[in-house]
C-alpha cells in the first residue's frame, strides 16, 4: 500500500481556520440526502424496502467483481480494465454451456433416475465451475502474455495494455465466429421463482399481482447474496490463514523484500489474477442470470462500478470491497427509485468524490505510512 503517498497538497489540520465552511457544506448535503430518503420512507415503506432489496442484489454482484479489482490493484497497482471483460466471458461461457451443450442437465443423462432438483443443482454448479475455470485460464493467459512483460515498464504502459486487452476481448468476442455481436437473451440453467412478503412469505404465481404493499424477491436474489457472502468468507480465510495468502499480503506490502524472503512473486501475482478471475466468472454467471441479456460489452459498466466500489471501500481491503459495493448498490437503487435513473452514474461518482475528499484512502483504507 505504499504507492499512495499522502500528497502534501494541503496541510489538513483538524482545527484549521474556516473549516466550518466546508464542514457545513458537507453537512447540508448530508441533510438534504437524509430528508429525501426519510420523506420517501414515510411515504411508502414497502417501496423503500423494495428499493433497498434491489440495491442489495446489485451491490452483492458488484462485490464479487470488486474483489478481483481490489486484489490485483493491491498487488500490482494496475487498474485491470480487462477484468470487466473477463466477467463478460464468464457469462458467455455459461450461456454456451447451457444452450449448446446442455451442460446443466448432464447428470440427468448419466443417471436417469436422479431427482430433478439434484440434477439442476449439480448442473448449475458444473456450469458455474466451467465458467470459472475458463475465466481463470483466460486471466492467467492475459497476465502472462500482456502484463508480465511490462512489469518493469512505466505503469501507464500496463494501463494502456489493460485498455487494449479490454477492447480486444470486446471486439474479438463480437466477431461472428467467436461469440456474437448481438444482445443475446440468456438462458438460465434453472427456473426463476419469486416470493412476496406481506405478513408472511408467499410465492408469486404467474398471472396474479401480489397485493398492495408487498415486497418481492426472487431465488436469484438469494443465490447472489449467499454466493457473494460465501466468496467473501472464503477469500478472507485464504488471505488470512493460508500460506499463499500470506505471500500475497507480503507481495502487496513490499515486492522486493517479499522476493528476498523466498516468495515467488510472479507466481503470487498470477495466482491473484486467477482468484480474481474465478470470482469474476462466478459474478458473470450470476449477473447474467439476474439480468438476462448478454452481449460483449456488458462488462464495461459493471466492471467500472465495481472498481469504483473498491476505491470507495478502500482499495486493497477485502471488507472494503464488500462495503463499497453495497454502498454503490444502494446509491444506484435509491437514485433510480427517488431521483431519476439517468442520474445514477453521476450520483455514484459524486459519492465517491465526497468520500475520497473526507477520507482519501477510502472507507477501510489504511492511512499511508511514509516510507523511505
Amino acid at each position, binding site marked *: 500500500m505504499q504507492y499512495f503517498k499522502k500528497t502534501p497538497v494541503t496541510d489538513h489540520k483538524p482545527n484549521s481556520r474556516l473549516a466550518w465552511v466546508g464542514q457545513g457544506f458537507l453537512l447540508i448535503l448530508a441533510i438534504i440526502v437524509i430528508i429525501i430518503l426519510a420523506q420517501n420512507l414515510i411515504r411508502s415503506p414497502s*417501496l423503500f424496502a*423494495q428499493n433497498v432489496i434491489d440495491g442489495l442484489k446489485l451491490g452483492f454482484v458488484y462485490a464479487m467483481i470488486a474483489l478481483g479489482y481490489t486484489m490485483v490493484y493491491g498487488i500490482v497497482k494496475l487498474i485491470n480494465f480487462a477484468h470487466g471483460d473477463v466477467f463478460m466471458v464468464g457469462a458467455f461461457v455459461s450461456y454456451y454451456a447451457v444452450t449448446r451443450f446442455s451442460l446443466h442437465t448432464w447428470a440427468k443423462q448419466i443417471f436417469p433416475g436422479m431427482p430433478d432438483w439434484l440434477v439442476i443443482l449439480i448442473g448449475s454448479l458444473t456450469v458455474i465451475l466451467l465458467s470459472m475455470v475458463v475465466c481463470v485460464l483466460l486471466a492467467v493467459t492475459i497476465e502472462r502474455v500482456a502484463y508480465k512483460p511490462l512489469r518493469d515498464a512505466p505503469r501507464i504502459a500496463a494501463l494502456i495494455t489493460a485498455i487494449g486487452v479490454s477492447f480486444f476481448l470486446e471486439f474479438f468476442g463480437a466477431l*461472428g465466429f467467436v461469440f456474437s455481436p*448481438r444482445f443475446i*437473451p440468456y438462458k438460465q440453467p434453472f427456473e426463476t421463482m419469486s416470493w412476496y412478503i406481506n405478513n408472511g412469505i408467499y410465492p408469486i404465481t404467474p398471472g*396474479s399481482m401480489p397485493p398492495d404493499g408487498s415486497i*418481492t424477491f426472487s431465488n436469484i436474489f438469494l443465490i447472489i447474496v449467499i454466493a457473494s457472502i460465501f466468496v467473501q468468507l472464503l477469500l478472507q480465510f485464504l488471505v488470512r490463514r493460508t500460506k499463499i495468502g500470506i505471500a500475497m499480503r507480503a507481495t502487496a506490502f513490499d515486492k522486493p523484500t517479499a522476493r528476498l524472503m523466498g516468495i515467488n512473486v510472479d507466481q503470487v501475482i498470477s495466482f491473484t489474477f486467477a482468484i480474481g478471475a474465478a470470482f469474476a466468472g462466478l459474478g458473470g454467471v450470476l449477473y447474467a442470470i439476474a439480468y438476462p441479456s448478454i452481449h460483449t460489452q456488458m462488462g464495461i459498466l459493471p466492471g467500472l462500478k465495481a472498481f469504483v466500489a473498491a476505491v470507495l471501500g478502500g482499495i486493497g481491503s477485502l471488507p472494503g470491497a464488500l462495503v463499497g459495493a453495497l454502498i454503490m448498490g444502494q446509491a444506484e437503487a435509491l437514485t433510480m427509485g427517488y431521483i431519476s*435513473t439517468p442520474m445514477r452514474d453521476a450520483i455514484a461518482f459524486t459519492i465517491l468524490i465526497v468520500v475520497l475528499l473526507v477520507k482519501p484512502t477510502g472507507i477501510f483504507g489504511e492511512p499511508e505510512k511514509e516510507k523511505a
Partner: protein
Amino acid sequence: MRTFKFLSLVLVVSLLLSACGGGASKEVKIAILAPLSGPVPTFGVMTRDGALLAIEEWNAKGGVNGMKIVPIVEDSQCTPDPAANAANKVIDQDKVHYIIGEVCSKASIPISDIANGKKVVQISPTSTNPSVTVGTDGKVKDYIFRACFIDPFQGQVGAKFAMEKLGAKTAFIMLDQANDYVKGLAEFFEKSFTEAGGTIVGKETYTSTDTDFSAILAKIAEAKPDVVYLPDYYNIVNLATKQAKEKGITAPFIGGDGWDSSDLDLAAAAGGYFTNHYSPEDTRAEVQNFVKAFGAKYKDDSGNPKVPDALAALAYDATNLMLQAIKDAGADDPTKVKDALTKITFNGVSGKITYDASHNPVKSATILEVTKDGIKFNSVVNP
C-alpha cells in the same frame, strides 16, 4: 536535414497529386452504411444482410439498366463521427451516388447533411427522427428519403390498439430519454392515449446501458396500470419484462418495432404486443418470397434458415426502392433518381410505399403478439 525537407516537399506534392482517382463505367455503386460495430451491431448485420440480398437479386436479373450493382459496405458504428467519415469515404474515395443507411438517427443525420450537400441520394431504412429528411431551416432535404414510418404514426397506432383492442384505461410509460426513437414513440403514444380519454399513471426514464429496472418496476407494481408502454429495443425489453415477471406484474407490455428480433426472449415478453413494419407470417407474396430468399441465403448459429426481422425487411425495401428508382430514372444520375423516388409507388415487403412531401413513406403498420411459442400476427392498421 536539407534532403529531408526536400523529400517532405516532394511527398506533399505527390500526396496532392495522387488524391485523384478514377472509376469504372459499367457498374453502379451502392454504399451500405451500417453499424457493424458499436452499440447495436445486430442491427447493422441485419441491415447489411437485407440490403445485400436485394442487390444480389437485382444482379441475378441482370443488374439495373444493364449495369452491374456493386455494394460497398462501411461500418458507421451508430455514432456521428465514424458515420460522417464513412459517408465522406464512400462519396469521395469510392465515388458512390447512392447510400443505404444508417440505422440510427444520430448517425443518419450527419450522413444526410453530407449526402444532401454532395447531391447523393440516401435512403435510411430505419431512422425515424424527422431531422433526417427535414433540415433545421424546415426545408426538406432533396436527396434524403427513408423507408420506415416515423414515430408519430407508430405511437398513435400503439395507443389506438391499447384502448380499442385491450380496453386499457390507464397506461404507464417507460422510456429512454436519450433515445430519440423511444422518446418519439412515447411522446406520441402519450398524446394519442390521453386525447382518446385514457390516463397516463406514470412515466419513468432509464438509460440504454441499464440492466436493472427494479426501481421502475416497483413503481409500476404500485401504480397498477392496465398496460405498460415500453417502446425500446429487444435487449431492454428482455430485461424489463423478465424482471417484471419476477415482480409479479401482469399488465401487458406494448412496444414498437424495436421489439422485433429473433433474440426477443419469448418466455419473458409473452403476453406483450408491438407495432411493426411487417410480419414474416404475413401471407402476401412479397413477404413470403423475401422470407424464403433470406432464409436460403443466411443461416443462424445452428444452421437453420434465418428469419428476417424488420431491419432486414426495411433494408431490403430501401435497396429495392433505390434500384427501382434508378431503373425508373433510366440513368445513373442522382438528380433524376431523387425525382423518380418522389413519384414512386412501390410494393415492398413492408407494404405499399409512396412518399409524402417530407419524404416519409405512407404505409400501413402491423400489430404482432408475443406468445411463448413465437411471435404471432395480430392485425394490420392503416394510416
